[in-house]
């Protein structure tokens, strides 16, 4: 067994949140206590977020990835592997772990491998070679041609051809022009851009420098969510390092090309992910979208031609220029080339940041890479594209991951959020959830987005609240169409998608809510009732202690009851019960135990 040469701790936000700093400290302390001089370094997101905190042990003979660590296990690791020389089998993530083995990493190739705060690490991983090649041997037109050959399409969601976008910006009127990187990753359930910026910031900077050279820009803004402090910090470090080495700034690598990047922190407005709103925000205004055309390529930041791409799009560029567009285009389908990064989350067994080739089926992603549903419940739907996207049912899991196939389902590729839902997720509630999000994030400029989404939300609340009417389904369809048609920007145009897709694939759930007052997922509180099963109740008082409204009552060792008119259906008694002695009723069964007016008076007196 070869000696351990390095210990690498995954210090992305997910890792830190899961306790990676404590693991890092425990490793250092244990090594110091034993007088060992093995270097402990850090890296970004290793990707297997469900196994965080993660540590990779590097030896001359290979790499060993450990997961689910804590301070105690970290000490155990030092003792067994570093000192004893034999891996701790029960903590080891095997090399053929399907989660890792089925991925194809281009954008994420360096994530979890290099130290994101080390330029040397990036340079050692072929970093800035693409930029060097571009500056020394290619004209801007040749760069654009290469990107067009690659077939790269925008990874922010809409999927516009990147090469075409660049050529439009290049051929716009002469004079000052800007480049913008959209890192305002606002879709709830998506964290690809955060992870990439935290784990490999130089790759995005290099991609931006190449794009700037191609369109003729000398200044760029990176618009990053303020909620991502670690990403901002690492970007700023990377920019400083690149400037010192003349990889950014004036006369890069001795060429005539000069390029500055400014980091702008967003201030928490979802609509700023829309390009015209984002530019307003950079200019210091309220982030309200404007009519297109003129497109940013014509009139963007401060009226100058501007090219905007998403973080992941720029992240693909260095690879394309290093290996050639044709090589990149070998991956993927006819119209969607390359790979796509997804943030796999929700009721999935193995969640995290993954990168898969375009053309893979949704089933392979969810059941192959993600290992299926956590807790072995039944799969119900996968939500793609956040508030602009939709829910795809099990019957469509053979659909390929490419822009056009996903759009045909009514969902969208989106920026890469993939939230998996199981049978305990109510699809009407999901639609309501997204509508409440878009409703509160609407900037208020367009009437249909501002008021139409409000009316849609009220209708959904009515259905979830047990007051729905059958005509509500038609009303939702009609409003959805109008909001889509009469909104200026992507936020409003796509806001109805979660409603339309759930209506399309799960209409029976809406109807059950309305006709039978039944929520099959048992999530909509107005449609459920909790009841003690007398045969199983042991009288342990756990439910009575958990109940915030004194609705669950009883004496020790005697069967408890739930006073229905005091019960607010919060479910805490259900979670507290260790004997499965509380059942959840819905539909007519719930109605049967619901307090009548007379019952309410009686219960109130008791």
């Amino acid at each position: 067994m070869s000696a351990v040469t390095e210990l690498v701790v995954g210090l992305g936000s997910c890792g830190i949140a899961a306790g990676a700093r404590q693991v890092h400290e425990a490793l250092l302390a244990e090594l110091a206590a034993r007088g060992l001089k093995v270097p402990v370094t850090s890296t970004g997101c290793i990707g297997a977020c469900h196994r965080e905190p993660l540590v990779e042990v590097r030896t001359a003979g290979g790499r060993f990835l450990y997961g689910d660590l804590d301070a105690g296990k970290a000490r155990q690791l030092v003792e067994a592997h570093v000192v004893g020389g034999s891996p701790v089998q029960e903590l080891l993530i095997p090399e053929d772990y399907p989660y890792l083995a089925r991925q194809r990493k281009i954008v994420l190739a360096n994530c979890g491998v290099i130290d994101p705060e080390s330029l040397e690490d990036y340079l050692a991983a072929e970093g800035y070679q693409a930029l060097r090649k571009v500056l020394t041997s290619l004209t801007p037109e040749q760069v654009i041609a290469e990107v067009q050959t690659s077939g790269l399409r925008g990874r922010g969601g809409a999927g516009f051809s990147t090469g075409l976008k660049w050529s439009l910006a290049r051929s716009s009127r002469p004079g000052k022009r800007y480049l913008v990187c959209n890192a305002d990753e606002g879709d709830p359930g998506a964290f690809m851009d955060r992870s990439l910026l935290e784990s490999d910031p130089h790759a995005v900077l290099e991609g931006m420098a190449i794009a700037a050279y191609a369109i003729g820009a000398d200044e760029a803004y990176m618009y990053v969510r303020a909620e991502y402090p670690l990403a901002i910090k690492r970007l700023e470090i990377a920019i400083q390092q690149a400037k010192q080495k003349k990889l950014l700034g004036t006369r890069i690598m001795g060429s005539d090309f000069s390029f500055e990047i400014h980091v702008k922190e967003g201030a928490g407005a979802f609509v700023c992910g829309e390009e015209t709103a984002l530019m307003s925000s950079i200019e210091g205004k309220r982030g309200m979208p404007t009519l297109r055309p003129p497109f940013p390529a014509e009139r963007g930041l401060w009226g100058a031609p501007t090219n905007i791409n998403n973080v992941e799009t720029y992240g693909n560029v260095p690879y394309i220029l290093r290996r050639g567009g044709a090589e990149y285009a070998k991956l993927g389908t006819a119209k969607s080339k390359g790979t796509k990064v997804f943030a796999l989350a929700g009721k999935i067994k193995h969640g995290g940041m993954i990168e898969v080739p375009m053309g893979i089926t949704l089933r392979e992603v969810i059941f192959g890479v993600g290992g299926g549903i956590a807790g072995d419940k039944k799969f119900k739907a996968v939500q793609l594209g956040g508030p602009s996207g939709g829910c795809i049912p099990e019957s469509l899991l053979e659909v390929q991951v490419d822009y056009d196939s996903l759009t045909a389902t009514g969902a969208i590729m989106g920026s890469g959020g993939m939230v998996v839902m199981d049978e305990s997720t109510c699809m009407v509630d999901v639609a309501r959830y997204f509508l409440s999000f878009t409703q509160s994030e609407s900037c208020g400029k367009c009437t249909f987005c501002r008021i139409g989404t409000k009316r849609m939300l009220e209708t959904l609340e009515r259905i979830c609240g047990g007051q729905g009417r059958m005509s509500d389904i038609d009303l939702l369809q009609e409003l959805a169409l109008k909001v889509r048609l009469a909104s200026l920007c992507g936020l409003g145009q796509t806001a109805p998608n979660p409603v339309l897709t759930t209506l399309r694939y799960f209409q029976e759930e809406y109807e059950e809510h309305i006709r039978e007052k039944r929520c099959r997922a048992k999530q909509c509180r107005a449609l459920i009732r909790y009841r003690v099963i007398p045969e199983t109740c042991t009288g342990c008082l756990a439910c009575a202690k958990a109940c915030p409204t004194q609705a669950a009552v009883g004496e020790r060792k005697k069967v408890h009851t739930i006073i229905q008119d005091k019960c607010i259906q919060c479910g805490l008694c259900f979670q507290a019960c260790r004997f499965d002695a509380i059942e959840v009723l819905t539909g007519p069964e719930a109605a049967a135990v619901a307090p009548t007016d007379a019952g309410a008076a009686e219960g109130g007196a008791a």
Partner: protein
Amino acid sequence: MVATETIRRYPPSRDYLIPMLQAVQEEQGYISRESICEISDYLSLPESKIFGVATFYNQFRLSPPGKYQVAICRGTACHVKGSFNLLETLQRELGIEAGATTRDGLFSLETVACIGACSIAPVMTVNGEFYGRLEKKTVEKTIRELRA
């Protein structure tokens, strides 16, 4: 002159308005009426415009926060894993609604759209520090420990 020094670190140009507001909030915890007036003078921009920007973005608060700023994530992954129930637990435990500050000034509670830590959902942060894979009990324990 509560915020003048902070503001003057930036050039007097509108595109620095949001960074200025962020810096003021970073230092003072919130955007006070006085600091809006000072920015208005410095940028020669009506106070209404500055108020408009400050109220448009979710990040800015116009009242002082609690000593412990609790934020519960309401992103999709957290939602399907029961973050609404945790929000209720927090509201009950703190005795305030989301968006408010406790009377003793100890806690403020807010919801955030998504903090991107979906793999350890449901998540909350206290003064920026993450608490993941939450359950009702861990939420209650965290708050009680902070209060003690």
